[in-house]
């Protein structure tokens, strides 16, 4: 029977007449034995489907690589590892900025709400642990749930270190809760807010400018101060951790045992040229006054103090209340957010006479022996506000701050026949001021520098239709008119004279925590091209401002610390004179050079000179012998009309 059957199948298969085969498969009236051949179609279907699936699997698994990539995105999470941001120290190694760990208690509502009959969620204990009541618990939970049911949201932010230790110990009993560590900047001395600056979430604009493609939305970036200037060095290099995650966003451990991970590189520490004590002292002296103190170490160009007033506690702009505090500071009519040390541009007044005198001497327009006539208050076109001999020489003129003398010097410079005409003469004069660091930015590490203003000859051409002469622009000779300088620029002039003919572009940094060299621009000596003989004459002249019997700052002379300086009393459109002063000390090998500007403080000798002198004493002696003066300066208040 079996043989017979087989034969029939063979017949069916080999039959030339396909009809026979079709009959076997589809036609109904056949004997059971014939039906046996129908197994072929059934087996054929089974095998065909199997083959179809194998082909499909081959395409899916071997040929198509798309799914492999999708799987990587699906299950691997690339977790950015943020490096510790570099710390900031002062020149003596005192800590100015460091990172403080804060702990945010996070919750994943789904996991927290999961009912577990064996270990029910003990809300009462949990609330006691966090020191919140049940209403608050429910509120916080609802807020988190509204945010996302499956993803973590903060339940309680910035838990203190003590509470953190306490809670973390028993947190395993509360599924769905975990701590996330963040770091915030902390400023232990609460000084130099503007210099140190702050960090904040990166803005759209900053992201667009990020050509290296380093930052991501939500990253923190230096917003101002050295946090901005040294962002790259301070931030370090982000690391990467490849984590496996499941569909519920739960991390399931490290991928490939961390082979693909990249350790973050911590940011560099920075040592500033700033002297924290001097900075703090300056800020104290400036309380109740608007203005600025900039102190520079002449030998290096490092900024010793960068005081602006009013100021604020840098710790205000950290953490949860940042936005609120920032708004308050922004709305303060005293504008504490402005860094007047470099954003404030002021008429230098008589302090500018040092610049005018130096350029006049270098151009050969005057010599130290040159005398100009002074008719006191009756002088033309500029009257003199001081009483002195009628024909002062250079030394006398500096000591007495004689207006006519410097107007004449200025006039002699720009009218010097060797320049051919006044416009060329003015061009020379302007170029020299530029070389002395005025009218432009230093371009070092000081953020948001302002250039100040030394007018161009084109400006005067436009202003006066090309018809102008030394009388038209006479105010420049005494540091008034269009000329505007920043306290930083003024301090640099003081450092320049202290150095007897050169300066280093003023900068904030002293060195990095490692051996990285600081940018070359800050260590390159600048020589404006004025003969040091003349600068020495100027230096000697500035000494007499303290030591001379008629010196405008003679009241602040100290026997053991020979100081040099120049007062300035600058007219301005905002009320009373600005009280200005530049100074350096000691006379030989000066250690500190500074500029002080007290807005609407009146005479230079009233506020700026004593404050500068106290700063010098503080820096060199470490304390003051003139406690009365110190007290008077610290407690002194100037009333401003836009004060609240």
């Amino acid at each position, binding site marked *: 029977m079996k043989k017979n059957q087989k034969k029939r199948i063979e017949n069916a298969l080999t039959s030339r007449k396909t009809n026979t085969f079709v009959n076997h*498969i*589809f036609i*109904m*009236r*056949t004997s*059971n034995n014939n*039906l*046996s051949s*129908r*197994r072929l*179609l*059934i*087996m054929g*279907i*089974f*095998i065909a*489907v*199997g083959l*179809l*699936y*194998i082909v*499909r*699997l*081959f395409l*899916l*698994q*071997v040929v*198509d690589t*798309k*799914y*492999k990539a*999708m*799987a*990587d995105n*699906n*299950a*691997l999470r690339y977790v950015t590892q943020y490096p510790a941001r570099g710390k900031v120290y002062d020149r003596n190694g005192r800590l100015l900025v460091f990172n403080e760990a804060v702990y945010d208690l996070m919750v994943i509502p789904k996991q927290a709400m999961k009912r577990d009959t064996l270990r029910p969620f003990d809300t009462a204990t949990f609330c006691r642990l966090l020191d919140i009541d049940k209403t608050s618990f429910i509120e916080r939970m609802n807020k988190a749930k509204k945010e996302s049911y499956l993803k973590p949201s903060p339940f309680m932010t910035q838990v203190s270190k003590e509470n953190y230790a306490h809670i973390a110990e028993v947190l395993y009993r509360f599924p769905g809760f975990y701590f996330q560590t963040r770091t915030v900047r902390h400023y232990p001395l609460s000084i130099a807010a503007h210099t140190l600056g702050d960090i904040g979430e990166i803005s759209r604009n900053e992201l667009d400018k990020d050509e290296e493609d380093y930052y991501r939305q939500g990253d923190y970036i230096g917003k101002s101060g050295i946090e901005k200037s040294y962002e790259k060095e301070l931030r370090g290099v982000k690391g990467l951790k490849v984590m*496996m*995650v*499941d*569909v*519920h966003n*739960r991390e*399931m451990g490290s*991928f490939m045992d961390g082979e693909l991970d990249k350790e973050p590189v911590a940011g560099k520490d920075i040592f500033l040229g700033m002297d924290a004590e001097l900075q703090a002292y300056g800020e104290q002296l400036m309380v109740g006054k608007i203005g600025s103190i900039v102190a520079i170490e002449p030998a290096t160009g490092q900024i010793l103090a960068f005081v602006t007033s009013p100021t604020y506690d840098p710790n205000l702009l950290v953490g949860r209340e940042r936005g609120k505090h920032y708004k308050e500071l922004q709305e303060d009519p005293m504008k504490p957010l402005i860094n007047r040390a470099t954003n404030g541009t002021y008429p230098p007044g008589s302090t500018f006479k040092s610049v005018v005198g130096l350029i006049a001497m270098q151009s050969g327009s005057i010599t130290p022996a040159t005398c100009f006539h002074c008719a006191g208050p009756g002088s033309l076109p500029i009257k003199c506000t001081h009483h002195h001999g009628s024909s002062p020489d250079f030394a006398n003129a500096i000591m007495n701050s004689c207006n006519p003398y410097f107007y004449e010097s200025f006039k002699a410079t720009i009218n010097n026949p060797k320049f051919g005409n006044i416009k060329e003469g003015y061009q020379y004069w302007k170029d020299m001021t530029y070389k002395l660091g005025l009218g432009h930015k230093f371009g070092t590490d000081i953020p948001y520098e302002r250039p100040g203003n030394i007018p161009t000859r084109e400006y005067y051409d436009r202003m006066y239709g090309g018809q102008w002469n030394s009388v038209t622009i006479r105010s420049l000779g005494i540091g008034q008119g269009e000329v505007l300088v920043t306290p930083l620029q003024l301090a640099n002039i003081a450092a320049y004279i202290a150095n007897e003919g050169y300066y280093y572009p003023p900068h904030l940094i002293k060195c990095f925590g490692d051996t990285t060299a600081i940018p070359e621009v800050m260590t390159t000596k600048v020589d404006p091209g004025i003969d040091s003989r003349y600068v020495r004459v100027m230096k000697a002249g500035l000494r007499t401002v303290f030591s001379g019997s008629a010196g405008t700052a003679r009241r602040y002379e100290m026997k053991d610390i020979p100081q040099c300086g120049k007062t300035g009393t600058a007219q301005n459109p905002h009320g009373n004179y600005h009280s200005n002063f530049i100074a350096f000390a000691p006379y030989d090998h000066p250690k500190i050079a500074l500029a002080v500007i007290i807005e609407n403080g009146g005479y230079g000798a009233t506020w700026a000179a004593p404050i500068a002198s106290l700063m010098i004493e503080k820096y060199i002696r470490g304390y003051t012998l003139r406690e009365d003066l110190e007290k008077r300066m610290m407690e002194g208040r100037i009333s401003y009309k836009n004060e609240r």
Partner: protein
Amino acid sequence: MNERNKIIGKIDWVTVLIYLALVIIGWFSIFSAKYDEMHPSIFDLSQVYGKQLIWIGASLLIGFVILLIDAKFFNAFSMWIYVIVLASLFMVLVYGKATKGATSWIDLGAGIKFQPSEFAKMATALALAGYLGNYDNDLQKRRNQVVAIILVLIPMALVLLQNDTGSAIVFVSFIFVFYREGLPGAGWVMMAGVVAVLLFVFTLVWSQKVMYIILGSLLVLAVVYYLINKKKDIAKMIAIFACMFVFVFSVDYAFNKVLQEHQRNRILVLLGQLDDPKGVGYNVHQSKIAIGSGGLMGKGFLQGTQTKYDFVPEQHTDFIFCTVGEEGGFLGTSVVVLLYVALLVRIITLAERQRSSFSRVYGYSIAGIFFVHFAINIGMAIGLVPVIGIPLPFLSYGGSSMLAFTIMLAIFVKQDAYRLVNL
């Protein structure tokens, strides 16, 4: 040599070895899919992989018992078994528990749930085999045809009433046995089924209008051909075309009114008409990612990231093939597919060598059932078939299906071992 040993000696070991291979692959896949570092032992009875081991053990035990039972038992009691299972299907409708929209479970207490629909397939196969075999009922007689079809339709309808569409579709597999046993028109029904699926798919993809144009032009060509060749049954041909037109006409209606929304969406996703990888298409999308990411050699045992971390829903039950694909790669998947094809071909071959029509009908029935499960389950995992929630026999986690499929196969192995004694 006593009779028992003689019987066991006749067991078709090829079938048994394929079965064991699939069961072990399944167990390890479940372990991998549900692996939990807190419970690293595959024997941990608190985990699904430990539980699956219990089910495997129970299945092997019952399978062994079946081999010891007199082969005539199943033939003799086929109708009783059928009636009992039908009764339990009724019970489910009354007392059943709903899982994912389908009411198909009976809670036996003590955490054991029982899914009668898994056993309904086996019972139907037994009943059909008993009916067509025992009384030597010939499918050429109209009465016998009606009874045979009703035997299949009753459990199918009951399962459908449970809203368990997947299990109901499995009953379509009896078309194979009807075809083999010479039910008039079974071949045509199979053909018509394929044509209907094609028409359905093309209508959804191209719209009815296009289909009318295509069918219309085909009809014109056919009529011209028939006229030229002077063929006689032109009326029949036109009738067939008429049916196709009606079918296409009704596709839209059937699709929108008869199918439920989730079924509609699953079909649209499959046809690429709906792109929604996070919504309706999520399962299939994730499943394809898991399988596709396996590559040629796979990621290695316990190394899968997709299935292990819950990306694929139902990964240890209906989507167990994902774990095979991800960790075993193309190598693993083709081995599993080939094992299935080998099992199916083997069952057909064994069925053909049976002398009793009971055994043959039963063999074809279970081959059809295994095939439909295999084709739908793997087809959906690789995105060739819409998502229909039925398990992959021997691999998927689940006590009822493990037991039911094992019993199903064991009965056949017993019948085969007994075939010479039978006469």
